[in-house]
């Protein structure tokens, strides 16, 4: 979101957040400044700045005023020291936020109005507000990309199906849904890199929601056809399956001990290349891939374990042959 379109203070107020995510913000002053842009997903407690120390002052962050800062402001106002405020508002801060439903004195409001700096208020305590706002801004400012593919959740594993158009991504997803798995997004998957290592995928557009386009059928509504149990809003991408037309000249992985990965937004994700040809039941292969992925996460790697057993068996055969001093054992 932040790259082309600016994320403004008004956007922050307009965010549709629920219950434990709500910021409960409202604007109590400096309305003209609501179009100010928020450029960094971070907050600053302006205590030092209020006392007149401006070295390394992080003016470009959201300025958070808690009980302490508010008490200090009161003290300043009573003492009639308003130069500090003028100096504070000479920086183009995105906004000032007061927690605990606190509101500052008149001189603060007039300085804010004069500088067109929005003043917001929330009923949350400072610590709770900071952790919420940092999490929310972190999501908004996370690196983002859009991929042409289908995101499904199979046995709890988020699988991104990619491939050329017409290879059967949507049909595969439909069969997976029919078998009790969930659709996250069809065709256009928005991916955000959260916390630097988690790839969160979701549909690009709420209006289009969980619809799919199936050749020959047209556009279908998955929620209505299969129920709310068949959909999910977002899901971490844990496996990428590339579907491609069977190419007889290409060598496909036959053992599975080598693990392919692909990179999305700088994060490595396991990848499988699955050749498609009539008679190959792709949904069942994907289902099995998901279960195999779960096994791997639990520490059991089918292909490696199998190969180790073979090696162990060969070794014991060799040992036996050596022991009996026979070259033609068996």
């Amino acid at each position, binding site marked *: 979101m932040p790259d082309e379109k600016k994320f403004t203070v008004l956007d922050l107020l307009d965010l549709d957040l629920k219950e434990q995510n709500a910021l409960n913000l409202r604007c109590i002053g400096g309305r003209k400044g609501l179009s100010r842009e928020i450029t960094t997903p971070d907050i600053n407690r302006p205590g030092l700045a209020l006392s007149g120390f401006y070295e390394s002052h992080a003016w470009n962050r959201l300025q958070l005023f808690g009980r302490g800062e508010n008490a200090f402001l009161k003290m300043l106002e009573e003492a009639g020291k308003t130069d500090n405020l003028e100096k504070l508002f000479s920086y183009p801060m995105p906004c000032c936020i007061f927690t605990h439903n606190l509101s500052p004195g008149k001189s603060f409001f007039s300085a804010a109005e004069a500088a067109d700096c929005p003043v917001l208020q929330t009923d949350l305590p400072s610590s709770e507000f900071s952790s919420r706002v940092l999490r929310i801004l972190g999501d908004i400012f996370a690196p983002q990309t*859009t991929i*042409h593919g289908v995101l499904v959740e199979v046995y709890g594993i988020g699988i991104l199906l990619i491939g050329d*158009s*017409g290879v059967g991504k949507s049909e595969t997803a439909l069969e997976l849904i029919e078998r009790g798995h969930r659709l996250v997004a069809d*065709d*256009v998957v928005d991916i955000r890199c959260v916390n630097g290592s988690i790839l969160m995928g979701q549909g*690009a557009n709420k*209006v289009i929601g969980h619809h799919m*386009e199936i050749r020959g059928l047209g556009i279908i509504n998955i929620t209505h056809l299969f129920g709310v149990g068949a959909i999910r809003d977002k899901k971490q991408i844990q496996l990428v399956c590339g579907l491609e037309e069977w190419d007889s000249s290409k060598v496909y992985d036959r053992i599975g001990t080598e693990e392919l990965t692909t990179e999305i937004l700088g994060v490595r994700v396991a990848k499988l290349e699955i050749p498609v040809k009539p008679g190959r039941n792709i949904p069942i292969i994907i289902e099995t891939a998901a279960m195999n992925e779960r096994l791997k996460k639990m520490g059991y790697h089918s292909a490696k374990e199998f190969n180790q057993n073979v090696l162990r068996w060969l070794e014991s055969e060799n040992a036996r042959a050596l022991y009996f001093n026979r070259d033609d054992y068996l």
Partner: protein
Amino acid sequence: MTEVTVSIKNRAGIHARPAALIVQTASKFASNVWLEKGTDRINAKSIMGIITLGASFGTPIRILAEGKDEEAAAAAIQALFEARFEED
């Protein structure tokens, strides 16, 4: 890579029927075709993708094509935009 910029000339914007027309046209060509609105780039062979763009009347759209028949592909899609998707 062939690149053409067009704007949407039919009042209703790109809804389901124009999206289907674009996909049908794009699918006739071997080249990869994309549509771009602002920073969003989507595959022009995907109906849901095109609808997701949310392209309304007057929006500038960039047509990008890459492949052996890219010029013909871009021209065919440009013609659809110019003909207002046979609407209005």
